[in-house]
C-alpha cells in the first residue's frame, strides 16, 4: 500500500532534484558559497582587528562568542531540518517557554537540578508535537510551526505572565557566562564546539546524515530507496525542540532573567545564519561548516558594528542584506555558468533550478 500512502502525502509538489555538484568546473569548486562565507569571515576578522582597537581582544571575542551561544546551538538542529527540506519556526517560542518554566519553577522553590531536565523534556514534547503534525497529518512544516510559534509563546505567557524572575544563585549564572578554567572560552561555547563536532560527523559522515540530504533532494525517491522518511523527520523535530529548550536554559542563566518574551524573533536570526551558511532552503544541499561560518559572520559583524557605535537599526539592515545576498549570489553564479555552457536561447522553457 506504499503508493497509496505517498499519494496522500503533500508530495504533489515534487521538487526537481538539485544537480549535486556534478559537472562543476574546478574553478566552480572554489566558488562554493560556504567557502566564500569562510573567506568573508576571515576578511571581516582581519579588517575588524585592523580597524577597531579592542575587537581582537580576548575579552571582546569571548563576549561576542558567548552572545552567539543560543543562536549557534539552535542553528545546529535547524541545519539538519533545512537540509531535509523542513523548517522549525517555533524554536524561539520554545526557548521562551523554557525560560518561563525555569522562572516559574524556580520561583516555586524547585531545585535547578530538577528544573533543567524537566524543561528539556518539555522542549522535546514541543518538538514532538511539531513532528507529529508534520509527519502524521502531512502538513507543511512552515504552517505548523507558525501555529506552534504562537501557541508555545502563548503558553510561556500563561506560565509566567509578564513577570520577570531574576535572583538565580551565582553558581548557576557562572555556568552560562563563566569561562572554562584556564581558558578564555565560555562554557556554552565549549558545549557548542562539542555538539557541533557531533553534528558535523552525523551530518557528513553517517548514513543518517546522507539520508537527510536524500530526503531534502527528493523525498519520494528517498522513501522508495528504503529511507524511513517520517521517522527521521520526527526525530529531527524532537531534536530541534530539545535543543531550543536547552538554549532557553542557557539564555535564562546568561541574562539572569526568566521572561516569557525571551528570545522573541530569534528564529529569524537562526534561519538567517543557516541560509547565509549556504544551506539551500529547498533542501538537499549545505554544509555544517558553512553554517558555523555563517553564525560567526553574523555575530562578528554585529559585534564590529556595535563597537563602532553603529546603531542596531543598521545592524538589522546589514543582516537582511546579507541574507538576501547569500541566497541570490549562488544562483546568479550558477545562472552565469549555465549560460556559458549552453548558449541556446531556448533554455527559458526549462525550469533552471538552482
Amino acid at each position, binding site marked *: 500500500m506504499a503508493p497509496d500512502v505517498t499519494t496522500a502525502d503533500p508530495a504533489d*509538489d515534487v521538487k526537481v532534484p538539485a544537480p549535486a555538484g556534478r559537472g562543476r568546473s574546478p574553478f566552480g569548486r572554489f566558488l562554493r558559497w560556504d567557502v566564500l562565507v569562510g573567506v568573508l569571515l576571515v576578511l571581516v576578522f582581519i579588517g575588524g582587528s585592523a580597524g577597531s582597537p579592542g575587537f581582537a581582544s580576548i575579552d571582546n571575542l569571548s563576549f561576542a562568542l558567548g552572545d552567539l551561544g543560543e543562536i549557534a546551538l539552535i542553528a545546529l538542529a535547524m541545519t539538519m531540518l533545512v537540509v531535509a527540506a523542513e523548517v522549525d519556526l517555533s524554536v524561539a517560542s520554545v526557548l521562551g517557554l523554557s525560560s518561563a518554566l525555569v522562572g516559574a519553577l524556580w520561583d516555586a522553590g524547585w531545585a535547578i537540578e530538577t528544573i533543567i531536565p524537566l524543561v528539556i523534556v518539555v522542549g522535546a514534547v514541543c518538538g514532538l508535537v511539531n513532528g507529529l503534525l508534520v509527519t502524521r*497529518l502531512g502538513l507543511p512544516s512552515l504552517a505548523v510551526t507558525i501555529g506552534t510559534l504562537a501557541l508555545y509563546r502563548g503558553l510561556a505567557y500563561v506560565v509566567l505572565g509578564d513577570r520577570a524572575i531574576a535572583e538565580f544563585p551565582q553558581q548557576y549564572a557562572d555556568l552560562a557566562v563563566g569561562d572554562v578554567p584556564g581558558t578564555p572560552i565560555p562554557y556554552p561555547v565549549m558545549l557548542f564546539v562539542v555538539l557541533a563536532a557531533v553534528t558535523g560527523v552525523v551530518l557528513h559522515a553517517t548514513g543518517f546524515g546522507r539520508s537527510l540530504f536524500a530526503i531534502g533532494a527528493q523525498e519520494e525517491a528517498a522513501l522508495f530507496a528504503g529511507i524511513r522518511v517520517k521517522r527521521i523527520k520526527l526525530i529531527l523535530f524532537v531534536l530541534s525542540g530539545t535543543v531550543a529548550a536547552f538554549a532557553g536554559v542557557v539564555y535564562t542563566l546568561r541574562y539572569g532573567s526568566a521572561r516569557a518574551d525571551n528570545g522573541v524573533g530569534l528564529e529569524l536570526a537562526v534561519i538567517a545564519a543557516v541560509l547565509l551558511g549556504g544551506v539551500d532552503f529547498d533542501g538537499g544541499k549545505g554544509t555544517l561548516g558553512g553554517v558555523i561560518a555563517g553564525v560567526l559572520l553574523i555575530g562578528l559583524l554585529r559585534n564590529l558594528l556595535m563597537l563602532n557605535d553603529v546603531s542596531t537599526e543598521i545592524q538589522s539592515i546589514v543582516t537582511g542584506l546579507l541574507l538576501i545576498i547569500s541566497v541570490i549570489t549562488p544562483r546568479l553564479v550558477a545562472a552565469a555558468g549555465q549560460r556559458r555552457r549552453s548558449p541556446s536561447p531556448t533554455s527559458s522553457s526549462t525550469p533552471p533550478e538552482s
Partner: protein
Amino acid sequence: MSAVTAGRSTRGVVDLVFRARELSIVAALAVLVAVTAGVNGNFLSGQGMKDILLNASILVLLAVGQSVVVITRNIDLSVGSVVGLVAFTVGDFLAADHGRGIVFAVVLGVAVGALCGLVNGLLVSFGRVPALVVTLGTLYVIQGLDHFIAHGRQINAVDLPPALLSLGNGTVLGVPYLPVIAVVAMLAVGYYLRSYPSGRDFYAIGSSPEAAGLAGIPVRRRVMGAYLFSGALAGLAGVLWLSRFGTVVADAANGWELQVVSAVVVGGVAITGGVGTVYGAALGALLLTTITSALVVLKVNPFWQQAITGALLLLAISVDRLLALRVARVLRRRNARHGS
C-alpha cells in the same frame, strides 16, 4: 463504510466539502459571536461591533494581498514591516507639511508599499530565490530602515491633518470607512481572480509552476504582479493604520506578518499554493480579530490569547487536511467503482 452507503450523493458531499471552508468559518464566527453575546450583551453593542470591524479591516486588507501571493505558492513575510514603514514615513511627511491632503497620503503610502513589493517581486521572480528567505531578508531591511528614519521619535495625532484622522474614525451612512475600503478591495480582487484569465493564472502557477510555464503563462510577470499588489495593499494598510491610531512609533506593526499568514491559512488558502479564495482569507482575518475581542469581553486572561490563536491555527490546518484526505478517498472510491 461500504461502497453501498457511499452512493449517489457522493458528488454532493464532495462539492459541499470543497465549499465547506468558507461555510465552516462563517459557522465558527456565528457560534463565537452567539456564545460571547450570550455571556456579555455588550459584545453586540454598536460600539463593540464597530471596534471589531475597524480592527479587522487592516488585517483583511493585508490578508487579501497575502493570499494572492500565497496562491502562487510564495509568501510575503515583509508586510508587517511595510505597514510600519509606511505609517511612519507618511505620518512624518504629513506632520512636516500641513498643506498635504488625504489623497496625497494614500498615493504616497501605496507608492512606498508598491516599491517594497517591487523589490520582493524582482528578487523572487527574477532572482529565482525562495520567497521565504527573500521576504525574511526584506523584513529585516525594511524594519531597520523604519527604525533608522524614526530614530526613536513618534508621530502624534495632533500633528496629523484632521481629514486623515476622520478617515480612520469617521463613517459613511453609519458604516466606518475602513471596513468599506477592505470589503471593496476584497470583492474586486476576488472577482478578478475568479473571472479573468490572468486571475486564473495565479492558481495555475501555484498548482504547478513548471506546468504553468509550459502552458505559456508568464509566470515571472504574474509572481511579480502578486508581490507588487501585496506591497501596495500593505502600503494602503499603513496609511489606514496611521489614520486609525494617529500615534505611531517605528515598530507599529511588528510581528503582524505571522498574524496575516495565520489569517490566510485559517481562511483555507493552502500554504502549498493553488488553493483558496480571498473571501476565505478575509473571513479568517475577521475570525481572528473577533476571537481577540471575544476573549477580552469574556475576561479571559489576556495571556491565553496568543496560545488560543496558535491552537486555532493548528486546528484549522489539521481539519482542512483531514477533510482533503477524506475527499480524496471518496473520489478514489468513486472512480474505482466507475472504472469497474
